[in-house]
């Protein structure tokens, strides 16, 4: 068997902030423009694709994040076996891409998920992120794509002071290191 490797495999705790890499998580990029695409997603995933900018919808298994008017980001709540991930990817691909409704792309390993928890979470982000979190902070389910220390990220507000942050795999070790360095000073 091939071994599974992630760039970080770690959890760090500081006063009032905890940072952990959580993998493997299923992640699929969905793109489409018409109403049928949205309907199909709802049917296949039992989840309504959010059409309002910077929002998301979730059920007990999955989260669907708005990325742009024709792009969504699907990720699983829990760690997932690669077989289940492949199954869902194939199913969505045949129901959406094959029937010319849009695109379905597995990006599970394109992104690394990092969970940030604790009252100092937003203070940590403000060390390198120009985004205004004042409203985001209090909006459960809010989504933003922005940059932290010049690195692209997707941030999903899961709960009060509990964020899932997605960073491209090749950048993840650097961002991880930077976040830990920053956490010393918050």
């Amino acid at each position: 068997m091939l071994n599974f490797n992630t760039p970080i495999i770690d959890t760090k705790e500081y006063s009032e902030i905890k940072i952990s890499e959580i993998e493997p998580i299923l992640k699929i990029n969905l793109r489409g423009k018409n109403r049928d695409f949205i309907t199909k997603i709802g049917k296949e995933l039992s989840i309504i694709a959010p059409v309002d900018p910077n929002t998301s919808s979730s059920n007990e298994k999955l989260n669907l994040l708005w990325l742009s008017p024709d792009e969504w980001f699907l990720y699983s709540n829990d760690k997932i076996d690669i077989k289940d991930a492949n199954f869902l990817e194939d199913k969505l691909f045949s129901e959406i891409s094959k029937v010319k409704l849009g695109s379905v792309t597995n990006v599970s390993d394109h992104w690394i998920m990092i969970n940030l928890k604790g009252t100092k979470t937003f203070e940590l982000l403000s060390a390198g992120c120009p985004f205004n979190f004042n409203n985001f902070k209090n909006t459960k389910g809010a989504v933003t794509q922005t940059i932290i220390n010049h690195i692209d990220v997707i941030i999903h507000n899961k709960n009060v002071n509990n964020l899932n942050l997605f960073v491209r795999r090749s950048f993840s070790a650097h961002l991880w290191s930077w976040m830990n360095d920053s956490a010393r000073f918050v």
Partner: protein
Amino acid sequence: MFLINCPYCGERDQSEFSAGGEAHIVRPKQPTELSDNQWAEFLFMRKNIKGVQFERWNHAHGCRKWFNMARDTSNDKIHAVYKMGEKPPIK
């Protein structure tokens, strides 16, 4: 550092965006039928005005959508942002 109101995502810091030059220059549908001069007009000639200029911007580190902006180059004031394909809301 501007604060740009992305027509899709809302107000964001300029560092999330990249600028893409003058707006409303349409790529000719039949380039092969153009003379060198006509093609050069499309390819090279750009306005560089002091005052309100129409520009293309991309929310590169956000929704990745291109949009248009009317910006006064003399004081950097952004008068309007509008989606691709839309007409400028001001003159």
